[in-house]
C-alpha cells in the first residue's frame, strides 16, 4: 500500500485501525502496554490498601470523603467512556465530523471530572489540612488518586492534540489507529476509576 493510499481518507476498510501493519502493531502494542499499566495500578492499590488505616492521628477516610462529589465524578467519567465509544462507532462508519464531535464531548466530560478532582484535593488540603505529608494514608491516597488524575490529564492532552492535528485532513489509515488507541486509553482510565471509587471511596466510608 503506498503512502497516498494510507493518507487518503476515501479508502477506508471496515476496521481502519487495524488495516495497516503499523496500525496492527500500534493496536497490539497498546494493549500490551495496558497489561503493564494494570500491574502499575495494582501496585498502587496494594500500597493504598496496606496503608489506608495508617492515619497517624491525622484525618481518616471516614472523616474526609463525601460520596456526593464522587458520584458526580463517576457519572462524568462513565458517560465519557460511552461518548468515546460513539466516536469510534462513527470512525468505523467513516464519519469524521461526528467522530470529532463525540470526542469533543468526551473531552468536555473529562475536563469536568478533572475539575471535580482538583476541587476535591483543594478542599482536603485547605479545609482539612490533609496532605501527602500528613500520614502514610495521606501519601497513599494522593499518590493513587493523583496517578489516575495524571492519566486523565495525559489522555485529554492526547485526544485534543489528535483532534486539532487532524481537524483539516479527516480520517485516514495513518491516523485511525491513533484515534483508536487513544480511545482504548480512555476506557482504561475508566476501568481504573471504577476500582478507585469502589476501593478508595466506597470502602473508605464504610
Amino acid at each position: 500500500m503506498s503512502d497516498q493510499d494510507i493518507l487518503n481518507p476515501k479508502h477506508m476498510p471496515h476496521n481502519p485501525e487495524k488495516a495497516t501493519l503499523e496500525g496492527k502493531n500500534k493496536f497490539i502494542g497498546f494493549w500490551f502496554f495496558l497489561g503493564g499499566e494494570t500491574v502499575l495500578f495494582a501496585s498502587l492499590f496494594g500500597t493504598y490498601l496496606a496503608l489506608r488505616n495508617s492515619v497517624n492521628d491525622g484525618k481518616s477516610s471516614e472523616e474526609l470523603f463525601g460520596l456526593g462529589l464522587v458520584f458526580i465524578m463517576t457519572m462524568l467519567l462513565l458517560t465519557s467512556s460511552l461518548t468515546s465509544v460513539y466516536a469510534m462507532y462513527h470512525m468505523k462508519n467513516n464519519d469524521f465530523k461526528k467522530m470529532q464531535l463525540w470526542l469533543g464531548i468526551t473531552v468536555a466530560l473529562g475536563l469536568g471530572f478533572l475539575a471535580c478532582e482538583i476541587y476535591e484535593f483543594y478542599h482536603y488540603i485547605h479545609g482539612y489540612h490533609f496532605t501527602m505529608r500528613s500520614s502514610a494514608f495521606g501519601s497513599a491516597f494522593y499518590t493513587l488518586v493523583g496517578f489516575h488524575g495524571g492519566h486523565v490529564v495525559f489522555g485529554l492532552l492526547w485526544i485534543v492534540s489528535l483532534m486539532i492535528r487532524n481537524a483539516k485532513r479527516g480520517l485516514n489509515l495513518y491516523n485511525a489507529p491513533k484515534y483508536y488507541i487513544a480511545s482504548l486509553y480512555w476506557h482504561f482510565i475508566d476501568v481504573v476509576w471504577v476500582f478507585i471509587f469502589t476501593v478508595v471511596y466506597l470502602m473508605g466510608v464504610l
Partner: protein
Amino acid sequence: MSTIAANKRGFGSALWDYITTVDHKKIAILYLVAGGFFFLLGGLEALAIRWQLIQPMNDFVSAGFYNELITMHGTTMIFLAAMPLIFAFMNAVVPLQIGARDVAFPFLNSLGFWLFFFGGIMLNVGWFTGGAADAGWTAYAPLSTTSAGEGVDYYVLGLQISGAGTLIAGINFLVTIVNMRAPGMTYMRMPLFTWTTFVVSALILFAFPALTVGLFLMMFDRLFGAGFFNADMGGNSVIWQHLFWIFGHPEVYILILPAFGIFSEIISTFSKKRLFGYTAMVFATVLIGFLGFMVWAHHMFTVGMGPAANAIFAVATMAIAVPTGIKIFNWLFTLWGGNIKLTTAMLWTLAFIPTFTLGGMTGVMLAAATADYQYHDSYFVVAHFHYVIVGGVVFGLFAGLHYWWPKMFGTMLNEKLGKLTFWLFFIGFHLTFFIQHFLGLMGMPRRYWVYLEDQNLDLGNFISTIGALMMGLGTIVLLYNIVLTCIKGEKVGGDPWDGRTLEWAISSPAPFYNFKQTPLIRGLDALWVEKSEGRKGLTPAEPLGDIHMPNGSILPIIMSFGFFVAGFGFIYQKYDLSWLTLIFIGMGISLATMLIRSVKDDLGFHIHKEDLDKEAGE
C-alpha cells in the same frame, strides 16, 4: 539514501548516523558499546570491593565509599550492563531470526536505548556530586529513605528513566514477535532465542511497573516528604521490599532466559543437531516465566512473614528447579550423539552447564526457608547469585559475543585469544566464588566493609580476591581481542559457523533492509531445512519489490535528554525550590519532542526494486 555501502564517511557523519539511527542492527551496536562500558565500570567496582576484602580489617577504602561501591556495582551490573547487553543481542538477532525487516516500532527502539543511556549516566552522576547511592542495589527502606546526600536520589531517578526505556524495549519485542514473523514462521518454529526474548519481554512488561511504582514511592518519600516507608508516619518499610522483589525476582529470569536462548542456539549449531526436545524447551521457558512471578518472597524469609507464607514461597520456589532441569537435560541430550566442535562460543556454553547447575542447586538450597535463615544475607547468597549471574548470564553474553560477532560486524574474533580469555575468566570465576559459599556459612554476612581478624575468614577472602584479579586479566585479554579484531579482523561470509537459523542466510553484516525478499519458513531451523534439501538460499515468500523503511530521527535522544535534565530539577528542589525551573525546562523539552513526533507525519521511505537489483549485480 539507498546507497547501501556507505563506506568512507567522516567521523562526524558516522556519529550522527548512530545518534539518529532507528535501525535495529545499529541500535544493537549502541547497546553493545554502552553495556560493555558499564560492564567494565561495574567490574572495576567489583575489583575494588575484592581488593578491600583481601585481608581482615583492610583500609583500602572507607566504609562509606565501600557501601557506594557495592551499591553501584550491583546496580550497574544488573541494570546497565547485563540487561543492555542482552538487548544488544536481541536487537541484533531477533528480527533476523524471524525474517523481519525491522522491529515493530523502530522509533521507540531508539527511544528505549537513549532512555537507558541517560538513566545510566544519571545513576553515575552521584559519584561526582558528593557520593553515589549507598543503600545496596535493593535500596531497602528506611536506610535508603534516610541516606544523606543525593546518591539515592540519583539511583531512584536514574532507574526510573532507564526502566522506562526497558519497558519500551520489552513491548517493542513483544509486538515484533507477535506481528512481524515471516510467512510460515509459526510460534513453534521460532528459534529458542526468539522464544526466550518473547517470554522475557512479557516478564519485563509485568515486572517493571512494580519497580516503577516502588521508585515513585521512594522518590515521594525522599523528595516530597511522603511517608510510605516511614514508621513514624504510619508507613511500612516492608512495602518497599515486596514491590522491589515482585519486580526483582522476575528480573533475574529476565537476565537468565535470554542467556538460555543463546546457549540453545550455540549448542545446536556446534553439535550439528537440532535441539533435543524443542517443545519441552519452549514449554519450560514459559513455565519458568510464569512461576517467576510467584516466588518473590523467597528473598524475604527472614522479614517475619510467618510460617505459612514462608512455607508456601519455599515450595513454590523449589518448583522452578523442575523446568530448569528439563532445560539442562535437553541440552545434554542435544550434545549426545552430536558432532561437538569446541569453538570459543561453545567453550563458554559448555562451561555454563556445570556452573549454572551449581548455582541453581544453591538456589534450591536457599529456597528451603529454614536453611535460608542461616544463608540469608551472607556470602552464601553472594556465591549463589554470582554462580547463576556470572556463570549463566555473563558466560552467555560472552558466548553470544563470539557467536554473533561475525553477523554484527562481518569479522571474526580471534579464537586463540578467545580461549585464553575463557580459561582465565573461568578459573578465576570459580576461585572467586566457590569459596564464598563456605565464607557465608562460616558466619560472614554480605555487605561487610571489613571482617575481623581471628574469624577464620582470611584465607577464603584472599583466594576470592585472587580469583577476581584473574577474571580482570581475562577481561583485558578480551578487550585486546576486540581492539585487534576491529583493526585487522579477518572478513567472514554470511554463514561462518554452518548455522541453522535465518540470520545466517544473509550477508555479514546484514544489509540494512535485512531480507531482500521476505523468506518463506518451512520448518524449525529454517536455514538448516533449506541446506539439508541442498538449496543455497532461502525460499522467498514474495516477489522482489519495493522495501519500505523508516526514517532516522534525532528526537529520541532529545526526548531522553529532557527527562535527564528534569531529573536534576526533581533532586535539587529539595534544597531550593528555584530548581523547579529545571523540571519545567526538561519536561518541556520532552513534551515538545513528543508533540513534534505526533504532529509530524513520518511515513518512512522506500528502497526501490531497481536499486535492489543493481546491488545484486555488484
